[in-house]
Each structure stands twice: as C-alpha cells, then as structure tokens.
C-alpha cells in the first residue's frame, strides 16, 4: 500500500470511519468577527496606513501624481543609488527624471547581478491600513519577487485612496491566490538577539512608501 493510502486510511480510522463530505462549511464556521475595525472615513483610513507604516519603520512620503517623478529622484539620490531595478510594467514617467542606471527585470538576471543594484521602484497590489502592510502580487508594475528582495532599498508607490483597504479580510478579497504574493510590513527585521529589534537582516533594510494621490 502506498504511504498516501496508509495515511488516508489512518485518518479515516482515527475519526471512526468515513466522514461525510463537508458541504456545510459555510455555515459551520461562525464568521461574526469584524470585516474592519473601527469606523473611519476614506481619508482617515489613508492616515492610519501612514501611521502604521511609520510605526513599523517604513519611511512614508506623500506626493501628487505630478510630483511623483521628482519625489522618486529625491529618494534615489538620498540613498546614493546609482542603479535601480525596474519592473517591466512600471508606469511611464515614474522614472522619467531619474539618472540612475535602470536595470530591467529579466528572467536571465542572476541573483548575484541583482545584488549589485542599489534600489528598486515598484507599485503594489493593495495596502492594508490596520496593519501597515503593502502587498505585491507580481503584476507587471511590481515585477518578480526577487527584485524587491535582493536590493537594499525598496521604494513602493501606493495609489491612495484606491489601493488602500482597512483590514486583512478586505485585502484577501481583492487578491488572487494563484499569483505569488508578498506581504510587506516595514523593512526586514529580527529580534533574535535578546529581543532587540534590528532592521534588515536579509531583505531590504530601507522601505520607503510613497502615497500618491490624484490619478
């Protein structure tokens, strides 16, 4: 007998015989927990996002869509970045004013090549206010998972208020489980040494989030 059959057989016996199909799942579970916590206006939800991002040591900036290219230039310069990774579908114009060398995300790029890149600029799929989380889903304006992982500096642009939700339940509704997702709440961190928080053990040490309004 295969191990699969052995294990499934043991499960069946452990439960005292075959169990009927779970067609009652929807009503079996009490989902009276909240879809969001608190009553906020859209504006307040965006403020909460900014607050919670900052609380987890992301650096938050605001810009209108006209100001965005200049903001990105300023952030790249502030980090001293000479090379920036670019996802294939990054909106035209975001990097229009940047003079850093643009390294396009291609399947042939090795991790070692990416390691030479200073910064990465991406959009996001959704941002969660209550937890201060941005979620990337690998869409063309975000690129493959590795480009937001290996470089030390990640600039992530969130369109507000459209891409902002209040809560984790609302975020999951918007996301497609078949895509590889990365949820990011602040920069990489560890508390493994006497519970002192240290930023950036393996992922980007600096996370800058630009909240862009107006288009």
């Amino acid at each position, binding site marked *: 007998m295969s191990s699969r059959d052995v*294990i499934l057989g*043991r499960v069946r016996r452990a439960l005292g015989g075959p169990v009927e199909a779970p067609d009652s799942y929807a009503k*079996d579970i009490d989902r*009276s927990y909240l879809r969001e916590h608190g009553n906020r206006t859209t504006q307040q939800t965006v403020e909460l996002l900014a607050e919670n991002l900052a609380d987890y040591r992301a650096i938050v900036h605001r810009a209108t869509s006209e100001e965005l290219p200049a903001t990105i230039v300023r952030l790249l310069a502030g980090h001293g970045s000479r090379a920036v990774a670019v996802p294939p579908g990054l909106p035209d114009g975001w990097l229009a004013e940047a003079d850093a060398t643009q390294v396009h995300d291609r399947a042939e790029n090795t991790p070692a090549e990416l390691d030479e890149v200073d910064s990465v600029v991406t959009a996001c799929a959704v941002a969660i206010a209550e937890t201060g989380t941005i979620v990337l889903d690998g869409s063309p304006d975000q690129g493959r998972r590795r480009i937001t992982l290996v470089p030390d500096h990640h600039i992530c642009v969130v369109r507000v208020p459209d891409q902002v939700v209040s809560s984790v339940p609302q975020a999951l509704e918007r996301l497609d*489980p*078949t895509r590889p997702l990365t949820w990011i709440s602040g920069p990489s*961190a*560890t508390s493994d*040494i006497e519970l002192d928080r240290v930023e950036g*053990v393996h992922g980007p040490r600096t996370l800058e989030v630009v909240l862009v309004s107006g288009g």
Partner: protein
Amino acid sequence: MSGTFVGMPAFPKAAHDAVRNTTLRANLKHATHTIRDKRERAVSELDDWARLRQAGKEIKDHTLHHLEHYLVQLEESVTAAGGTVHWARDADEANRIVAGLVKETGESEVVKVKSMATQEIGLNEHLETEGIHAYETDLAELIVQLGNDRPSHILVPAIHRNRGEIRDIFRKEMGSWGRPAPEGLTDTPAELAEAARLHLREKFLRAKVGISGANFMVAETGTLVVVESEGNGRMCLTLPETLISVVGIEKIVPTWQDLEVFLQTLPRSSTAERMNPYTSTWTGTTDSDGPQNFHLVLIDNGRTDTLADEVGRQALRCIRCSACLNVCPVYERAGGHAYGSVYPGPIGAILSPQLRGTGSEIDASLPYASSLCGACYEVCPVAIDIPEVLVHLRERVVAGGPATRNGNKVMLRPAKGHAAERAAMRAATWAFTHPAALATGQRLASRTRRFHPRTAPGPGKAWTATRDLPKVPAEPFRDWWKRTNGGKETNK
C-alpha cells in the same frame, strides 16, 4: 519524532539543571516577559479577538474532522498548480523522500527556512549523513546551528543565548561554514545581524535548492503560506530553482478566506505585532518567478495517532504561535531544552507525548511539566485547552488505557513503578523558586473554580457568547499527589 534529543533526561532532571543556570533564566525571563506584555497590547487592539479565536478554533476543528477530504483536495490543487505531492508516514520516510529529491537536482547544499516540521524529523542530520549540507538561514537557527546547540523556543530558538555568547559563536564557527565573521566583531545586535547577513547572503545567491515548512496550506487553491520576519524565508522561497516544502498534514485550512482569521491572530499572538514583516504565498509554480520545481512532502509522523484521541486531538489545531510558552511559569524557569523535544513549553508538553507516545521516560514525564495554571489556554489563539489535555495524558501515563500507535489501537499499561509521577513530583519542586507560594496560589484558584463563570454576566455576555472564559484546573497536581498517595490510588 527523530533522535535530535536522544539521551535527554526526563523533564524533572533537565529542568533541575536548567533552573540552576542563572544566565539562562535571566535571558528567558527578559524575553518571555517582553513578548508577553507586547502581546497584550497587540491583542487588545482588535475588539473582536474572542470571535476571531473562536472562528480559528472552528475552522481547525472542521478541517480535522474532514481531514481526508481536504488532504485529497489539497493534493489535487497543488498538482494542478504545477507542484508534486509526496506522502510520508514517518520521519524516516520523509527524510528519505527529501534526500532523494535533493539528489535528483545534483546539488549537495540546500538553504532552509526555519521549520518546526523539519526539526521534528531531524532532516538536517539525515541530509548530512547523505552528504548534503543544510544551511539554516533564520538568524536564531543559524546561532543554534553554528553553536552545535538545540533550539529552545518555537519562535526565538536561540532565546537562551545572550549577545556575548552569540558573538563568540560567530567568531569561532562562521569560518568553517562559509564566510567568516568580520574582524573585530563586537556584541552589538546590529553588528551581529550584519555579520549574519553577509555570511548568509553568499549562500542565498548561489543556492539551487530551498527547503521550507509552511504555516498554512489552502486546500481549495493549493496555496502555501510562510510567515516570517527577516526575509530569509523570502530568499529561500524565491531564489532557488527547486523548492521542497515539508509540512504536517494538520496545517490545512479549507479556503482562501480562512487566512483572514489566522493572518490576524498569528502575528499578534506570536511576535506581538500587527503583522509580521513578511508573508509569502505560493501556489505551485509561476513562470520565471521563483522556483520552477515545487515539491510538497506531507508528513504524518504521529499526527493521525493524535487525531485518534478525542481529547488530545485538539493539539493539532496549534498554529505554533508560541504564546503559551511566553506565559508559562514552568517554561520560564526550566527553559525549552528541558522538554526534550523541538516543541517546548505547554504545547510541547501535550504534543510530544502524543506524537511520540508516552513510552520513554521524558515523554511520560512531560504531562507533568505544568502547574495547570491555565494561562496557556487563555492566550491560545485557537483555544486549545492545554490543561485538559495534560490531565488526560497524566491519566494515561498513570492508569494506562487505549491509545493509537502507528495507526494501530494499543492498550497502554500504567507507567512502570510510577516512575513518572515520582519524577514529576520532583519536577514540580525544582521548577519553581518559591514552591510554597505557588502552591497556595493554585489551591486558591482551584477552590474557587466552580465560581469562575464560563461566560461573563451582564453586558459582557454577548461578548463571551462564543467564548469560554479560561477554565481553572480542577485540582493542582500537588493536591492530587497527596490525595492519591503519590498516584498509587489513582482516579478516585
């Protein structure tokens, strides 16, 4: 479970030694109290916490009750998404499967995400015997691995080490595993973390095979989820060409929507954060993004035996948040190593003797490694009644009775000569600095037990309608010991 802890003395002896280690106790106390206080705050932000906890419990119970259905569904959806599913009934089989998969790639090195399941089966040690080097990439796991040590906490495995010890380990050992520690390394956490970053980055960038566990597996979509802080998980899940995930069969949730419960309760219970820095999900393979070969190894290793126990099976709801460790007065004093298993603390005290059986001295003593104060139940985000299971397992040790081992029903005999209880009695004395004070506290709580309401009266009623207030154990162990004459007259 594997031989990681072979030769481990029973809990009382190990606890006795640990309690006398003052560095360990100071490290532990600082750590558990810090997380504990922060957790309180993180949980109190959500005013539907009790309902989330109840939903988490119901989802897990439902899944366990229909486990066969969901395992089959998961297998189908993972396969449809481009992954390959393997089944392993025990540690040996799981280790053989993983070693075989690594060999197929022609590689002799793998990078690993921290995973309880692979520790449970002793994967690293097995791979080593097959000539494959497994590198732990979580900072704490790295400290444990370089120090040739054992993990002592689910979440912060090197919690028993202070910064000076960590610096010494890095200086001495890093060079023989790869990039040596920088010259003049000091003991500041930032410098230590930087040394680890450089040491590990070299491995990530060349790794062809990654090995992980998973916090959740979604049956309907075939999605796996890893929750972490450092980014080492993302590295291992993204950069290698082949990814092998080794996961216990109980880690299933039925639907994508179910994650909304656990992604709220896990981080807050575990690291006391609103959300952990990184969560990664992957569904099979994705074209040119991440590993192009994905293998899921589903392990039983005592889980179906645990499932067969109607009282004990609730331990399978555990999402390994470690909240119960941080509130446990026995864990705080004894440390994680005393539990002789990769699962320390209250959850370890009920899980290990079920996964491994109560045949060995250490496993027979584990159900006694508790004061039954009930704090673990109160914090548990999936409402596992740990004291209830402890009492149930004590009874099994003392009185014997029916159990399931390797899928077969067996009749357990009472532990020989009540060695376990005698040992347990000593454990209780040793594990506490002020045994008398503690005992008084327990008795008070127990005597008033029937007056503790199961639901809050008045306006709080609606709030507790779906939640039981924590139960206080019926009788402290000491009293039971006295009353039953050291367990000789059992179960009166």
